[in-house]
Each structure stands twice: as C-alpha cells, then as structure tokens.
C-alpha cells in the first residue's frame, strides 16, 4: 500500500523537515516565553535591551542572508553539474558562517567585559539562551556545509542548504524580537 499524502510532495529528506519543524517550534516557543516575561517588566527589559550591540547584529543579519544565498546557489550549480563552483559557494557560505560567529563572539566578549551575565536580568537569560542556541546551530551548520562540500551529492547539498536556511530564518526572527522591538 503506497502512502499518498502531502508529505511525499516535500522536496528533500523528510527527516530534515521534521528537524526544521522541531527547531522552529523550540525557537518559536522560546520567543513567545521571552515576550510573555517581558510583559511583566517592560521598562527593565527595555533598559537591558539598550545595552545590546545592534550594529553588530544588523551586520550579522546581512552576513547570514548572503551566506544563505550562496548555499542556494551551490545547489543550483550542483544541479547543472558545475561541481567546482558548487563547492566554492558552499565553502564561501561556511566562511560567512564563521564571520557571523566571530562577530557574535565579540558581542559576547563585550557583554562579559561589562560584567553582564545570564543572571544580570531575565532579559539577558533569554538573550543568552536564544542567541546562544542559535549560535550553536550556526556552528553545526558550518560543519554541515563543509561536510556536503566534501560529499557533494545533490541530495546532500539540498539537505545542507535546508538546514542552513533554517538557521537563517531563525536569526531573522530572533533579530527584531530580541534586538529591536521594545
């Protein structure tokens, strides 16, 4: 008996979609919890938020979106059998991922220098939890991109790009809520 459902229409690996869905749930719930707790102390959250380095985060947004573009290009190249270009794009995407991590690291170091930790204010606990989890995914994503640049079957690149776009998407959701909205 063949299963004929919408699930089969999804491109790429089913399990990758399960992972993406789960990740979006986790970060979505995390952001909701953050916004709910912010309601209990709007001024405290606004004050804490003003300590964030917004320019760096905006730069990181540009870096990550560009990186996502390169990962998408890589899949396109691979489908046209231009393997060297595909690999180059993946490595470039991974390099931009590293740039993101360096900027993020500088941001964390700056916070630490100011004596700000996750215990300073509930805002910072959510800040570290959400952006920290995300940064861990960026790190994992960089490794995935390099892995699929090495093992460059089309299916692998597709799965890697799927994962990388998810990391991208989550950042685009985190950035306004954590850094900008007050």
């Amino acid at each position, binding site marked *: 008996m063949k299963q004929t459902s919408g699930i089969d229409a999804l491109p790429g690996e*089913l399990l990758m979609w399960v992972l993406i869905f*789960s990740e979006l749930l986790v970060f979505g719930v*995390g952001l909701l919890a953050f916004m709910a707790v912010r309601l209990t102390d709007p001024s405290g959250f606004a004050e804490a938020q003003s300590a964030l380095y917004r320019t760096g985060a905006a730069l990181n947004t540009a870096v990550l979106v560009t990186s996502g573009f390169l990962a998408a290009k890589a899949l396109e190249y691979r489908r046209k059998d231009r393997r060297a270009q595909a690999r180059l794009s993946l490595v470039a995407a991974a390099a931009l991922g590293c740039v993101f991590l360096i900027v993020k690291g500088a941001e964390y170091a700056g916070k630490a220098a100011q004596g700000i930790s996750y215990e300073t204010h509930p805002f910072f606990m959510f800040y570290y939890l959400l952006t920290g989890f995300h940064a861990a995914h960026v790190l994992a994503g960089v490794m995935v991109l390099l892995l699929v640049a090495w093992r460059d079957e089309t299916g692998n690149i597709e799965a890697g790009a799927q994962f990388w776009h998810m990391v991208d998407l989550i950042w685009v959701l985190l950035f306004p809520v954590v850094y900008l909205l007050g």
Partner: protein
Amino acid sequence: MKYESQKIALVYFAVAMGLFAIQVLGGLLAGWIYVAPNTLSELLPFNIVRMLHTNSLIVWLITGFFGAAYFLIPEEAEREIHSTKLAYLQLLILVVGTLGVVVTYVFNLFEGNFLLGKEGREFLEQPKWVKAGIVVAALIFLYNVSMTVLKGKKTAITNILLLGLWGLALLFLFSFYNPSNLALDKQYWWYVVHLWVEGVWELIMASILAYLMLKLTGVDREVVEKWLYVIVAAALFSGILGTGHHYYWIGTPAYWQWIGSIFSSLEVIPFFAMMAFAFVMVWKGRRDHPNKAALLWSLGCATLAFFGAGVWGFLHTLHGVNYYTHGTQITAAHGHLAFFGAYVSLNLAIFSYAMPILLNRDPYNQVLNMASFWLMSSGMVFMTFVLTFAGTIQTHLQRVLGDYFMDVQDQVAIFYWMRFGSGLVVVIGALLFIYAMWVPRKEIIERGATETPAE
C-alpha cells in the same frame, strides 16, 4: 516460530512475569501502608516496600525488553541468535543480582560496605557488585545481539532497537558515579533515570511497536520505517534537553527552567506520533490477524502512553506549575499511568504476541487476556484519576495555603482508599494475565471466523 533460538525469549518472559507479580503485590502492600501506615513498619518499612515496587518494575521491564529482543531479532535478521548459552548466562547473572538486591535490602546486610552494601540513592540503590553484574550482563547481551544483527539482515527495526539497547547500557554507567554533592549527584543520576525512560526506552518502545504493527496489520515495511524514523527523531530531539525539567529545584542554574519547560513540553509529540502511528497502521492494514489480544495491548499501549507520559507529564512539566506540584501525588499519578501505558503495556503486548507462537498453541485463550487488559487498564486509569485529585487538593492545601504535610495527608485519605481499591483491580488483572499466558491450552478459537470480517 521460525528460529529455534527464539525460544530464549520464553525464559526471559517467565522471569519478567514472575517479577511483575511481585511488583504489583508490592504495590498493593505500599497502597495499604498509605491507608494503614503502621503496617509492617518495623519488619518491612515503607521506603523498602516502595524501593522493591519501583526497582522490580524496572528490572522486569528490562528483562522483558531483553526477551523481546531475543524473540524479534532472529526474525528480523533472518538468522539464529549468535549464542544461546550466553543468553542464558546473561539471565542467570541478572536473576542472581536481583535476588542479591532484595536480600541485601530487606535484611539490611553489609550496611556501609563499599561493595556489598546498599547505596541509598533513590532508584539506583543497588550494591556496587550488582551494578557491576548488570554491566556484565548488558555487555553479554549487546555482544550477542549485535553479532546476530551484524551477520544477518539489517532492518530499521533492529537498528533502532539496538540503538535503544546500547543507549540503555551505556547510560547505566552513570550510576557508578556518586558525587558527595547532592545537587551534582541528582544531576548525573537523571542521566540514567530520565535519559532511559524519556530517551532510549522510547526507541525500544517505538521499534517493538513497529515490529508488532508490521506483523499484526500487514502494512508495508517501508511505511512502518518512515514512521519509526520520525518518531525516533522527535523523541530524541525533545527528550535529551527535556532532562532540564528535573533541574528546576536541585541547585542547577535558573536557565534550566526554560530549557526544561520548552523541550519537555515537546515530549508529548513522539507519544502522540506513536498513538497516531498505531491507529493509522490498523486502519490501513489489510491483514486480519487472529491475535486480537496482542493488537488490543498494542493500541492500549500507544493510547495510555500518550495520556500517561504525554498529557499527564505535560500537566506538571512547566516550571511555573511544577513550583507548586513538585513531589505531590500529581507526580505519583503521572508515574503510574506513564509506566503502565508506555512500558508495561508494551511488554504485555509483545508477550501476548510471542507467547502463543513460542508455546506453539496459537491462537489460544484470548478472552481471558483481553479481560485482563480491561481490568488492568481501567484500574490504572482510575488510580491515575484519584491520585490526580489527591494531588490537586494536596497542592492547594500544602503548597498554596501552607498546611502541614501530615494534616494534608489526613484530608486526602479517601483518595488513598480508592487508590487501594483500584490497585486491587490491577493486581487481579495482572494475575489473570499471567494465568492466561501460561495455563490454558484447550480453548482454541475457530480460525474460520476471523477470515470473514463481519462488516
């Protein structure tokens, strides 16, 4: 029975069912102590009775898993078990260890001895020598089944089952680490307790359930495997960081409250998926398998696991709620339905499926087995409800109003009486199940009736 070595399962199932009987009788005694607290207080104190109730549960469930693995791996791998002798040696070690624990505890032998005495840690009380024995037995088991699978056909079901069983054995190693700092002790101790029942045991559960669905409904292996992978992914994704829901009040940093709340809330998903899986397979399946009891237990397992582990777990998993309900009868309600639904029913499902094949008398007395399902399930569900009511009242009186623990206990006594009654029903059901498994031989159900479904 296609393979001679599947017979190993019979002995494992026998030991498991023996311990099952002891476990529920111990539970009945503990339930009685709740209403008549001085019962045996000198001879067999409540903490020992409770320890026997929970530990014999874990031991018989694991023995059942081992038996299930010895039963289904030859069929999946399409070859005999690597060594029958090793399988029996493994069981012997486990039985000696279990008896050692019981004797050491009941008579409090070797108190304070590093190797022979009890450790006094909840759920990991075993003396060191027993822990070492468990590791040796687990190594023998893993060697035996891994060799079988490596030489034979590899299927998704055996891969996931082995992953679960390897995880079970490796995580148990954390029980050897016993830091003197109580907060640290608890932190590592959950690596065994939580990562078992909300992690690797779910893999074992999903794979055994998948095997049963494959056999009972006749749905394509391809479809079953797709479900299996999704369930396993969801279980590990939510379950591993879900450990955080044990770290709320033990002295770990506050961020665990959010990590635990968020990830453990998602632990409902794999249990819901397992329930959906079981029912969808039955609806899609073309095979009308005569073993209706095994099917009833399988569907009951998936359903009660969703409610007991999933819904009742979520009930008190958010840290804002748990702040009030922690350690009340709400926990006991969840614990009972979760273990019964997920792992007891799973074992009873595979027993119901395998025993008629192993004893070469299928199908046999299914009516008694199905009656035992309804007795045990309704008893357990009723017990869950009364303990939930008791826990709700206890939470309000003790945690919100600040009444004294023992005063509150007096006020919820009526629920403890009802819990004892429902426990009695469960024990009757359990004994009936064991009787139905082993004793009746003659009541053969007409095969012809099942070939033409009355629709």
